[in-house]
């Protein structure tokens, strides 16, 4: 999937930069804002291209935080069960039963 926007942006920046390279310094001063804008368009196009592949939303981050909380809760519960098991084992060993 070739993206025409990024190809066009690169072609425009290249053409402007070629003119810029061949110009004298006073002319370069005049051309600099347009040249910066052309390169910024390349950066923005690349950013959009990468961004087009992203599907995550801020809501997904919150949902993952929720799952993390569930796993933490499971860990705490498991610690309680293991603690209870140790207590039962201790009682079985040490508490005299008639």
């Amino acid at each position, binding site marked *: 999937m070739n*993206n025409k926007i990024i190809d066009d942006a690169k072609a425009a920046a290249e053409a402007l930069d070629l003119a810029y390279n061949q110009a004298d310094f*006073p002319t370069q001063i005049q051309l600099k804002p347009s040249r910066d804008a052309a390169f910024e368009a390349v950066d923005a196009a690349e950013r959009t291209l990468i961004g087009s592949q992203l599907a995550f939303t801020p809501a997904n981050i919150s949902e993952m935080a929720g799952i993390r909380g569930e796993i933490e809760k*499971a860990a705490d519960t498991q610690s309680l069960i293991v603690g209870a098991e140790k207590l039962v084992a201790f009682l079985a060993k040490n508490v005299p039963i008639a």
Partner: protein
Amino acid sequence: MNNKNEMVPCVKKPGKRRYVWRILSRGLIFALPLLSGCTGEKARQLATAATLFKSNAHDAITAMRGLMDAQIAPTVKTDTQRADQFVSNILSLPVAAPLDSNMMDMAIDPYSIKLSSAEIAARNALLDNLDQEYVAFASMFDDLERGSFLAAKSVAKTKTYAATLTAQMSGIAKVVADNPPELIQQRVAVMTQIQKVRKDQTLTADQKRQQLSDLLNLWLGVKAQEGSLQQGVVSKCLIAASSGQSVLQLADSYDRLSLDDINQLTTGMISLAAQVSGKNLTDLKTQNARIQSFLAANSDYKALADSALEKIQSQLISGAK
């Protein structure tokens, strides 16, 4: 002897209630892994795999940032070249032209690009948020080992996110493979020199041929750098996507896979870098296509991948409006 006989019943013949205590205590600890199908070791392997996925994604994102910087970067100049350029630029200005700090900076380095603060912020937001998604994903598993017996249902929920994050890295690998980076200023620097040679009336035909031949090598060098930059980003995204695929398989079969299966998957993740090292772009594209086929082939993953694709398409449509 009597004393010994008195103690025997307490040690060798425990009462029924003591047996109940023992059965309860042993039963609890053995029943937990059987109920969930998970062990602490499997949990540790999954958490390690998720951390590796995060780390590989971070490397890929750093490479993407490098690609974006390189595309707009000026050519590297020596101190002498920079000094000559400064002198020449200042002398070319009319004497009446005012000097300020901006003018001085520009005379020293007229080829650097000044991105607007809005573009810098947008780029940082994109890449930093992307990085955070993989950090948040891995952090879900931070406490998994401690809760390995009871968290199987929660682990099953993570596969949605593993599939989406894998699809993202695979998608980025594809668009970078399809849209090669261009080192624009380096290309233009060579083209400018070629133009000079073409216009130079003082050179003989042989001299022009020789100089143009040298410049061809410079041009091919730039193209080779571009290829290397592209291959670096695609391979890093592919390593991240492949590790995401392994995490997805681990999360999906967490309660069914044996420890050996899991060890095999996680060992495979560690050798991913070696597997893609030195591969050309065609091979990398083929490997990436396999990941996308994997996501599409499994009906569960297909639903997840389709959902991610729908989100991507709706973003593209809203972006185009």
